[in-house]
C-alpha cells in the first residue's frame, strides 16, 4: 500500500505542476499504517463522532494524506488528479471545510499540536475514548508555539494524545541541524514530561508497535520520533533537500514512477 501511495504522490504532484514531494514520500509508510491499521475510523462516515482524530500539522505534505484517504475509500482515486486545481476539494494545503475527514486546515507551521491538545482536552472532558494523533515535521519544531503546546500537554498528562515527528532532517533552506539545531530532540520532549519513542519510519512493524505502545502509556502524552528518508524510494530524491518543494523536469516523474514500481529495478513491473 505504501508503494501505491508513493506512486499516487508522484503522479499527483507532477500532474499539478507544483507541490511538495520529498516529505510525502518519506511519510508514505506511516500514512499507510495509520489509515489501514491504526486509526479507528470509517471512510464512509468521516464525521463519525467516536473516530480517532488525525491532525496533520505540516499541511504541505498533504498529497500523501490525500492519496492514503483515497486508497482507504474516502473519495475516488480519480479525484487525486484535481490536486491544486481551481474548484478542487484537494486544496494545495488542506482545508477542513473542503474535504470531510481532514479534521483541520493547516499549512502555517507550528499550530497543529495545539489543536490536537485542544481535541484531547475536550475528549477527556467528555470521557470519550477517542485517540488524538498529531503528525508534525521536524523543521516546525523551530516554532515557539509547538513548545507552548508541548508544555500544556505535559502539564495535563494527556495520555489520549500521541504526536509523531517526521525526522527527515531537511527543510526549505537546507538541513535542520544547519538551519537551527533541534538536537537533542528526544531529551527536549522528555524534559516537557512526554514519553518518547524512536523508530525507523519505514519499518511497518516498528510503526505499528510504536502506536500500540503509545496507547498503553498512561499519565503522559507520547511522542514518536520517526526517522525517515525524504524522497524515500526514488534515488535522485533521497536526502536531497531541494526536493522538499521542487517541480519535475521532463522525464523525472516517469523515472521516479519506474523506480517505485520496480523497487529500483529489483522486480519487474507490469507497466514495463
Amino acid at each position: 500500500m505504501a508503494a501505491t501511495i508513493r506512486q499516487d504522490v508522484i503522479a499527483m504532484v507532477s500532474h499539478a505542476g507544483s507541490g511538495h514531494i520529498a516529505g510525502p514520500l518519506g511519510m508514505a509508510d506511516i500514512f499507510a499504517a495509520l489509515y489501514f491499521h491504526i486509526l479507528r475510523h470509517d471512510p464512509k462516515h468521516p464525521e463519525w463522532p467516536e473516530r480517532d482524530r488525525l491532525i496533520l500539522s505540516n499541511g504541505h505534505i498533504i498529497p500523501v494524506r490525500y492519496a492514503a484517504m483515497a486508497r482507504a475509500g474516502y473519495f475516488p482515486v480519480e479525484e487525486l488528479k484535481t490536486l491544486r486545481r481551481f474548484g478542487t476539494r484537494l486544496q494545495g494545503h488542506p482545508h477542513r471545510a473542503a474535504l470531510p475527514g481532514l479534521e483541520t486546515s493547516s499549512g502555517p507551521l507550528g499550530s497543529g499540536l495545539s489543536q490536537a491538545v485542544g481535541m484531547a482536552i475536550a475528549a477527556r472532558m467528555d470521557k470519550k475514548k477517542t485517540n488524538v494523533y498529531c503528525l508534525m515535521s521536524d523543521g516546525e519544531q523551530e516554532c515557539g508555539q509547538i513548545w507552548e503546546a508541548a508544555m500544556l500537554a505535559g502539564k495535563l498528562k494527556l495520555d489520549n494524545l500521541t504526536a509523531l515527528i517526521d525526522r527527515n532532517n531537511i527543510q526549505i533552506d537546507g538541513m535542520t541541524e544547519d538551519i537551527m539545531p533541534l538536537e537533542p530532540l528526544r531529551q527536549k520532549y522528555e524534559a516537557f514530561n512526554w514519553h518518547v519513542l524512536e523508530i525507523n519510519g519505514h519499518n511497518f512493524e516498528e510503526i505499528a508497535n510504536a502506536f500500540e505502545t503509545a496507547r498503553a502509556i498512561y499519565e503522559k502524552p507520547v511522542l514518536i520520533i520517526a526517522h525517515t528518508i525524504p524522497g524515500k524510494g526514488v534515488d535522485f530524491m533521497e536526502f536531497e533537500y531541494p526536493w522538499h518543494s521542487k517541480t519535475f523536469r521532463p522525464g523525472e516523474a516517469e523515472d521516479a514512477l519506474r523506480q517505485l514500481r520496480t523497487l529500483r529495478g529489483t522486480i519487474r513491473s507490469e507497466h514495463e
Partner: protein
Amino acid sequence: MPLNPKAKLVENILDTQSLEQAPTRAGYGEGLVQAADNNPAVVALCADLTESTRTEPFAKKYPDRFVEMGVAEQNLASVAAGMALMGKIPYIASYAMFSPGRNWEQVRTTICYNGANVKICGAHAGVSVGPDGATHQAIEDMAIMRPIPTMRVFAPCDAREAKKITYAVSKLDGPCYIRYGREKTPVFTTDATPCEIGRADVFWTEPGRARPDVVILACGALVYNAILAASEMEKDGMKVRVLNIASIKPMDEDTVIKAARDARAVVTVEEHQISGGMGSAVAEVLAKNYPVPMEFIGVQNRFGESGDPTLLIEHFGMDARHIKEAALRVVERK
C-alpha cells in the same frame, strides 16, 4: 431631554456622579457564567490573567471546564480551536494586545478558516488602560479582526451591555471578537435596553420630526461621551442623533445609511486607531451607499502612553469637548 425612550437608558444619565460605575470586563465575567449556566458546552481558557480578565468567577464555579494556559496566547487560540472542533464553545480571554494581538495568524487559520466556534474576549482595549502605557493599550484590535472572513466584532458600551453580548455570542455559531475596557465607566443602559447582534440603536434622538444636524456613531464606553456631547450641543440649539454601534461586524447598514441620509453629516467615535476600526467600517458603508462628510474621533495614528485614563481620553481627543468640536466641523462641511 431627547433620550430615545425606546432605548430605555437610565434616567439620571447626565448626572455622571450619580451613575453606577463598572468596567465592561466585569460584564464579561457575568455574561460568561450566564452562558455556562445555560449551556454545558461552554468552556473558558485564560492566559495567566484570570482575575483581571474576570474569568475567575467561571473558573471557580466550573473548574472542570476551565483551562489555565499560562502566558501562551498562540496556544490559547489554537487549543480553543481544537476544543471547538470537538463541539465545545470556548471563550478565550487575555488582554486584547496579546489576544488577538499576538495570535492573529492562529485566529485567522485555526479559528476562522477552520470554522471553529471560538469567542475571543480581549480585555484592556483602548488607551484608557491608563498607567500601563502603550504596550498594553490595544488600539488596533478591531482593525485586525474585522477583515477576517466569518469573524464578528463587538464593542459593548457599558458593563451591562457587555454582559448581554457575552451571553448572546454563546448562541451564535462561529468566531466572535469582543473588546472590553479595563477602567470603570458609567453604566447607563438597563436590562430593558435593546441589544441585538447586527443592530444599531438610537440612544439620543433629534426632537420631533426635525432632521438632525449631525449624527454621532459611537462604540464602546465612548458612547457615553457622545451622549454628553449631544446634550451640550442641544443646549446650543443643535439637533443631534447618537447611535450605539456595539455590533461593528455585522453592521446595521440600514440604520447607518438612514442616519447619514437624515443628517448628511457623520461623526464616528471609537477608542481605537481611526484607520481600520468602526469609523472605517462606517465609511465603507457610506462611501458605497450614501457619501456624506465625516469626521473621525479616535487615536490619530499614534501610540498610547501612560497616564490617568480620563486625561488620556482628553489628550487623544476623545472626550465630549472634542466630539462636539468634530460635530461642528462636519456640519460646516455640509
